[in-house]
């Protein structure tokens, strides 16, 4: 499953917060500081950029010498990993079990056959069947300080890397300053508290419809917000629209998924995982969100 590709635009009220912007993890990133101290904003912004770069260097599938890529090249041999990566792999393992297989970081290989470019090229059954044996977190062996993937299998942190980065950056910066901050990496965002005057940060949700710019505003005073969405990445064949959320258990897209799910939760990781899970429930997304008593917005 891949994450959001849309930017929620942060609208500001009276005094504009200072913004520090950069690019990381293939997304536009920014940290907003509700203060006038440009030097502080610059210093903390650079820290945020450095931490985002550190996470990307270590866990990006696209970087050949990242720890993650080393694992993907291991061809069946155990690869030793450090405390942080082991904690993330353990987290992925917990999410796999909690979601009963719907969240699976080994499912990335499906991108080899599913290309959501708006065309009608839907893979054949035999192509899907050929890839299924290479998917399945239960096939991965997690040792006390190493990981072993069967040859041909791959892992990627697409469903948690950016959210983890937002949480880490926010927690690191919040430990260093009382200034109210907002961290937004490509639409996955989290705030350290309400703005200085006590008012919430205002976030606008981008519309899924062509002719509307925004679907509305969300006011957030604490915690995180993430959006999983369907709008531009799909396949259309024989009048059937295939959304880009894939089910790792079947290798096929989830049918009846909402166009977009936005979730608010205390941390970005929780919001991200839950919005991914909600999308994966397809037609049952609203029921799932109701059962979990989540603050969520669903667009169909």
């Amino acid at each position, binding site marked *: 499953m891949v994450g959001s590709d849309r930017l929620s635009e942060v609208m500001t009220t009276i005094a504009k917060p200072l913004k520090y912007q950069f690019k990381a993890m293939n997304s536009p990133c920014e940290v907003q500081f509700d203060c006038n101290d440009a030097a502080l904003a610059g210093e903390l912004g650079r820290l945020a950029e450095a931490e985002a770069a550190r996470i990307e260097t270590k866990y990006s599938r696209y970087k050949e010498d990242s720890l993650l890529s080393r694992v993907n090249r291991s061809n069946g041999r155990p690869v030793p990993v450090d405390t942080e990566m082991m904690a993330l792999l353990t987290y992925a393992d*917990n999410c796999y079990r909690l979601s009963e297989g719907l969240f699976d970081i080994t499912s990335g290989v499906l991108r080899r056959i599913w290309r959501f470019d708006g065309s009608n090229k839907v893979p054949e059954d035999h192509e899907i069947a050929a890839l299924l044996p290479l998917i399945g977190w239960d096939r991965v062996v997690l040792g006390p300080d190493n990981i072993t993937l069967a040859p041909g299998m791959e892992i990627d942190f697409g469903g948690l890397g950016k959210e983890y980065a937002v949480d880490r950056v926010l927690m690191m910066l919040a430990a260093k300053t009382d200034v109210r901050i907002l961290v937004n990496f490509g639409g996955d965002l989290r705030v350290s508290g309400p703005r200085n005057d006590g008012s919430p940060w205002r976030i606008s949700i981008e519309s899924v419809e062509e002719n509307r710019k925004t679907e509305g505003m969300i006011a957030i005073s604490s915690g995180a917000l993430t959006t999983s969405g369907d709008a531009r990445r799909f396949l259309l064949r024989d009048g059937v629209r295939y959304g880009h959320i894939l089910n790792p258990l079947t290798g096929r897209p989830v049918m009846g998924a909402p166009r977009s799910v936005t979730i608010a939760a205390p941390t970005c990781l929780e919001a991200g995982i839950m919005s991914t899970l909600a999308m994966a429930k397809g037609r049952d997304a609203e029921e799932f969100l109701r059962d979990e008593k989540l603050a969520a917005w669903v667009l169909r």
Partner: protein
Amino acid sequence: MQLSNRNKGRIGATLCLVTANLFSTTGLVQAQEVQNAFDEPATNGPGNIIMDGAVMYYRENNSRIQAIEPMASYTDYADNGDIFSIKLTADSLSGASPFGATPWIAPQNFLSPTSVTISGDDGSTGASGGVVVTDPVTQMKILQTTAKANELPLNPGFQDTRGAANLSYTKALASRTRVTFNLNGSIERDYQSYSGGASIAQDFNNKTTTISVGVNYQHDLSKRLYGTPTPFAVMTGVFTDGTKSENIVSATAGITQVITRNWLVQLNYSYERATGYQNNPYKVISVLDPVTGAPQRYLYEARPDKRTRNAVYIGSKLAVGSFVTNLSARYYHDSWGINSITANASEHIPIGTRGYIEPGVRYYHQSSADFFNYFLLSNAALPQFASADNRLDKFNAITASIKGGYMLNDQIELYAMADYYSQTKAGTKGLLPGNNGSLNLFAGVKAISVMTGVKYRF
């Protein structure tokens, strides 16, 4: 896609816990509402150095023992999981202590050797209470002490200072295996004890189970002042026996198990075998007239030179909100015939956001050693072993205690403890022969102890 009923509606709550776990593992603590400072994760993990200093004051009733004991420790939790720790303790004891003789309706004189050299002759005051006399036959200096009528005889002017050091090193062999080595030494004027041990601890089941096994070897040297008496020797005279030694080998095995998220249980078994000198060289047993109960003479005690001990311990910690209920019990049995049962209960109660108070109670009951006797009779043959040491008597003990701690800030913890300890006779009261039912033979103790200290983490 059907939701299984087991997880229905609870995925978010579990995910919250899992996410918090991820952040604490990678070194970032959530800035969330923590109700009490003692709910925060313990700081006995890598990257911490802890220095701890405390002082304890102990005092028994009836002018018996008083002690003051300062201690200091330094522990370094290295980033790689290794732990190095050193602790120094000193204690200074003074006061009087029962030495095994029974009380009598008239004053009793006790003679023991002394090396005090004074210019004067008879009638001079000895260094530690009592009178120094010269034996007319051997010309030896002898200390004569007198116990008042109807009172438990006490060894007066007892004074001793002790210093001890403990060193410990834990090596993390793998993320779930730790091996620990420790070395200890304790030195006082008339006694030295040295020991070394090793143990290994292994985690299972995602660290919810820990099994540990350890062994220890201890070597003790008893260098009684003025020589070690032969068992059953009469109380007086000079003794030529010098240093006596004892070897103790012990092993423990234990398992700690997290039963539910809020409940931790521990089970331990320990075994010990001691061989060598185990008498208390200062303690005697009175030999009494079987009809009147009058003391005839006093003999130094005699204990076996082998002792095997077994103990089983179970402990439980249950958290309810920020409160923790602690319960434990121990069953003990040894080859000298002592069986004991110990039960402990205490409640950790959070106070405000930074402190806690922990009232507790301990109940203890032990049976007497096979060779324990308050006295021997002059018309009976000497048994193989005999001791009147009140530690080997049959008694109950209750401790009422209160502990507390206060986190001054993230790094400094202040703590204090106060205990009241009371021993009472269990079973049939000891009775002197003759018409002496009013004399109390039980030499158990009542004591209070208080301690205060500070822990600093950086």
